[in-house]
């Protein structure tokens, strides 16, 4: 009964042992157990065989393969993303974005604001649609496509021959 309990306890370690995942202390503990336990030996062998068939070990990666990989990866990095240029691009883009944000936010920041004391007295009022319409100015006139009938770009669609 005690041996069975030990087997149950060690079963997870047998699976990990198949891929060499055990720490030395665990490895030694399992090895001692396997000497006297045929079922666990069979279980360990089955795990090892299944793993060796399903995922056979491949040849070690060579230095030549790593050098080839490094060269290929560096070559694949676009010129705009090469290190120094990349940093300069980000620096420039960051400055441009900051400047754009400053221009966009300036009217909001610089406009007249009510004094702190008067803020509490402000109330939201529903806008007057007619006033908004007048404030928007005259409507944009539709483009008269008929007036451009002679434009070469559209003439092709009318069956006319391009010059």
């Amino acid at each position, binding site marked *: 009964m005690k041996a069975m309990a030990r087997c149950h306890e060690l079963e997870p370690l047998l699976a990990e042992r198949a891929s060499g*995942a055990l720490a030395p202390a665990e490895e030694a503990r399992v090895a001692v157990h396997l000497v006297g336990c045929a079922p666990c030996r069979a279980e360990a062998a089955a795990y090892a065989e299944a793993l060796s068939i399903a995922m056979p070990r491949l040849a070690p990666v060579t230095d030549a393969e790593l050098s080839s990989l*490094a060269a290929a990866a560096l070559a694949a990095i676009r010129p705009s993303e090469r290190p120094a240029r990349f940093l300069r691009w980000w620096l420039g883009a960051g400055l441009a974005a900051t400047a754009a944000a400053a221009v966009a936010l300036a009217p909001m920041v610089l406009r007249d604001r009510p004094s702190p004391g008067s803020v509490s007295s402000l109330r939201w009022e529903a806008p007057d649609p007619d006033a908004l319409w007048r404030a928007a100015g005259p409507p944009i006139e539709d483009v008269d496509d008929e007036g451009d009938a002679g434009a070469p770009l559209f003439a092709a669609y009318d069956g006319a021959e391009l010059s």
Partner: protein
Amino acid sequence: MEAAPIHVATSDDYAERRTVRRSRSPESPDNAYDAALLRAFLGGDETAFTALVHRHGGLVLGIVRRYARDSDQARDLAQRVFLRALQATRRSVARGDVHVRAWLARIAVNLAKNAVRDSARRTQAALAHEREGSSSKAAEVLDAEAGLLLAERERQVSAAVLRLPRRQRQVLALRVDGGLSFREIAQALEIAEGNARVQYHHAMRRLQDALAAAEEES
């Protein structure tokens, strides 16, 4: 900064993987060294990138070439892994939050999965000549009929890997091909270490069942 020892996990010796596993942890100076290499690369030093590839290329190639058609495709996949990791890490370098190895592992296992999906085929046969010993068990069997049965068993068990649930396959690939510890696997996949172990055990059990089923059929 003095170069730290290169810890490249290879697939030639599981015992060696244990050594690699114990030498690495989230608090490891390896992360700081990787961060230094990244900063150097972003500062214009391309040799720093080469050093990063030499430090972690074994991990990446080990994972992706299992699913690659040939060595050229494996290199292309590995190259994409490094480029994507570079994109991901650039934002983190300034924060000092750099886990290059974990990112590489996660990207590699995902790209490898996509490679399988896109090509809809697993081409271990193409890499068979690169396997250890350059000979499969089936090829060693002189009897043709027994060889065919053995080859069919290998095919069935190998196919069982692709039928594994995504998380189980990821954990198995990172453990077997990447040589990562369960702690590193947990970090790479952003799951608990106990969960990584459970996924691994489920995967191993399924492979064992597949082997048993294949033997019954033969």
